[in-house]
């Protein structure tokens, strides 16, 4: 899922004719109440570009289509997480509810961050060894017709873990140390990542407030100088300079916040959602384990005449469980590799961008300082 596409863009015999790294969600436009996303990609064979327009429902359709209930192995897959739906208010303003729900994805100009998140989602699906073979992805990316019009299958994404009775299963002891460990770690990390993301969001929001306050200060000083009948010309000059200084301060906060959102903010957000996706997968497996253990018990307790049937049931479940577990093991390995790579990319670009901005601003401050030292005192 490495964005720099370090391995081949497609998997062998993936069936996907599109190059994964070429998938771009370019922009979102508001068509009455609905957000329409423009997606471009390139054909592997001849590099020809394809462009389609899709709505959120289309993405949902894809997510549902990826899961096939009659393929038990698929239950062991960690499905790339689809961001929640972005509801735009009429004035394209972010309200508190959206901010709470989407966090960083709600910030940034013109849904930029949200589009990037959708782009990452599509790329992750395209790079997945199994999921990329699903025709639904190809359809989404290339069909002229919007696929979302078809009735979406209600899949497994109903947040089982939120149902109270199912919650008990979450803490069910595992038969495999590897998985028990993984479940515990995941539980811990998911909580910590979520908190870290929220607190980083608070930092960014404070920066945005500072940006607004600085702009306000700069404008009021400017306005005052324009209105005042410069009885004291030297003083007016100082005020103008001060106004420019606050303008630069505003720029500093603006850029810093932008950098934060587009690199580390997005990275932490994805990290958080991916960890939730792993949690979902592990939970599915745990549920299957509970089912299997119940079937075992039933088999043991069954009377002779029923025993055969019970055994059959148990055997099926066991096969499913084993298949799922082996898939899960692979997926967990892949997941950890990806998430470290993802976070690395986020941290490096965060640092580079902030360093650039800091250098740019430092130069501006020095310029201002020089100019101020030259200000006349009469």
């Amino acid at each position, binding site marked *: 899922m490495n964005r720099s596409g370090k391995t081949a863009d497609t998997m062998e015999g993936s069936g996907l004719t599109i190059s994964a790294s070429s998938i771009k969600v370019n922009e979102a436009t508001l068509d009455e109440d609905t957000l329409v996303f423009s997606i471009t990609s390139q054909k592997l064979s001849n590099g020809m570009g394809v462009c389609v327009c899709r709505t959120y429902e289309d993405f949902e359709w894809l997510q549902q289509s990826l899961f096939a209930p009659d393929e038990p192995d698929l239950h062991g897959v960690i499905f790339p997480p689809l961001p929640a739906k972005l509801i735009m208010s009429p004035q394209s303003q972010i309200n508190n509810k959206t901010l709470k729900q989407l966090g960083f994805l709600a910030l940034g100009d013109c849904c930029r961050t949200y589009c990037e998140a959708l782009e990452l989602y599509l790329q992750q699906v395209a790079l997945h060894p199994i999921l990329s073979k699903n025709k639904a992805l190809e359809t989404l990316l290339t069909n002229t017709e919007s696929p979302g019009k078809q009735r979406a299958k209600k899949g497994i994404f109903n947040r089982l873990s939120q149902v109270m009775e199912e919650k008990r299963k979450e803490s069910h002891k595992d038969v495999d140390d590897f998985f028990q460990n993984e479940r515990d*770690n995941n539980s*811990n*990390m998911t909580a*910590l*990542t979520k*908190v*870290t993301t929220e*607190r*980083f969001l*608070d*930092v960014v*929001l*404070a*920066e945005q*407030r*500072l940006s607004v*306050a*600085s702009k*306000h*200060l700069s404008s*009021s*000083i400017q306005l*005052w100088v324009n209105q*005042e*009948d410069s*009885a*004291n010309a*030297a*003083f007016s000059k*100082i*005020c103008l*300079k*001060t106004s420019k*200084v606050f303008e630069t*301060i505003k720029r500093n906060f603006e850029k810093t916040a932008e950098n934060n959102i587009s690199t580390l903010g997005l990275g932490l957000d994805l990290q958080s959602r991916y960890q939730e996706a792993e949690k979902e997968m592990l939970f599915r497996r745990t549920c299957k384990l509970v089912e299997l253990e119940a079937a075992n018990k039933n088999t043991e307790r069954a009377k002779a005449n029923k025993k055969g049937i019970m055994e059959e049931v148990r055997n099926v479940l066991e096969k499913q469980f084993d298949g799922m577990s082996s898939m899960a093991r692979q997926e967990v390995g892949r997941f*950890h590799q990806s998430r*470290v790579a993802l*976070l*690395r990319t986020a*941290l*490096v670009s*965060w*640092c*580079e961008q*902030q*360093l650039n901005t*800091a*250098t740019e*601003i*430092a130069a501006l*401050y*020095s310029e*201002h*300082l020089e100019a*101020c*030292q030259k*200000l006349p*005192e*009469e």
Partner: protein
Amino acid sequence: MAAERDPPPPGDAGQARFGEAEDGEDLFVVLCSPASLPAEDISANSNGPKLVDSFLDDDPDDLFAEATEEVSLDSPEREPILSDGPSPAITPIMAPRIDSTLFDQALEEEEDNGDTFDICISVSDPEKVGDGMNAYMAYKVTTKTSLSVFSQNELSVRRRFSDFLGLHSKLASKYMHSGYIVPPAPEKSIVGMTKVKVGKEDSSSTEFVEKRRSALERYLMRTVKHPVMLKDPNVLQFLESSELPRAVSTQALSGAGILRMVNKAADAVNKMTIKMNESDAWFEEKQQQFENLDAQFRKLHASVESLVCHRKELSLNTASFAKSAAMLGNSEDHTALSRALSQLAEMEEKMEQLHMDQAYADFYLFAELLGDYVRLLTAVKGVFDQRMKTWSKWQDAQLMLQRKREAEAKLQYANKPDKLQQAKDEIKEWEGKVQQGERDFEQISKTIRKELGRFEKERVKDFKSVIIKYLESLVQTQQQLIKYWEAFLPEAKAIA
């Protein structure tokens, strides 16, 4: 965590607020040390309220003879009521006349000397003295100077807040009615001081002490920058004497405090009744200009305080984020990533400190400067009011003269030779007063013009100096920030 904010200063400390609790009935003694200075007719008008409607003589002896033992009246921030005529049931306060020529001299000296102004005052080492509600903060006041008017090149004394207020009230009562802009003293604050007395050792009381220390320093520097005040014996005594008589009349509820409140009310009444015929457009323009300036400064002050608040919030949020990043790093299995996250947490902690420091710069440089100027403008308004009062007195004298003339004219036809003589004498007397009134008015107008010229120059210097200091702090912060990012980059790249 809300910063301790003082309410915006609408005027000077003459509001009905409690000052520090002080016991003792020390008299408010005014110093006059004729030995060390050229003989000046400096009066200290801070004597008890008088019912006598006479002007003071220039004879200093008389002055002391009239001193009462009552707790003095001082009207530091409120102009003494000068009107001689039918004022409401308030006892008029004397308006001592300062011999203006000597002050002209002082101003000219300053202009001649140009840049030989060499004095630096610092206020430092706040120390709590005493316990409980009688405790107070003592500050060290250090003066470094090469000016000859001081006995040494480096002086150091200990002063408490009420000493500063006392100095200000002496200066104000001496100079304000002549049109000099007396720098206002820092504000009293009951809440702040109570916390300090009670011994609350939290960050808000430390902030309060620092804020006050800085304000006291700026106050003294502004005062000595004024060429006339620099030579005032009160100022010299303040900076040099190891012992200073306590100034109790700065308390809000002392006799002096109550008199202040009463005078304030009388002022308001008088302002409404005096309608001045402005013959000089310059003054009208200036007054308008300063009204506008005042409004602007207040607005900006509020905006800067809001900025400071936001910055402190950013600092807190950064600290919070640093903590959770550290926890995340601790739980992370991948070694290099764990290390990078821990480094991130450390870096963010350092940034939190940077943000905090910058917030202090915002505050101590800009917010306090604007606050100082809002208070200064009140003093400026004060001198305009003084001029108006001087004019009014002159007009009243003219009226009186007219009446006396009319009375004399009537007496011409009556057959009372001694009454006639008396009337003629009175006319002479009032003619003199009219002339004096006119001279006073011209003098104060001249002084105000000079003072405003100084004020404008100082304003430019002050603001320029602040913006430069502020930019220096910004540049420094940025450099530091760049260093942090540069140090973090290899850590991030090291994640494999």
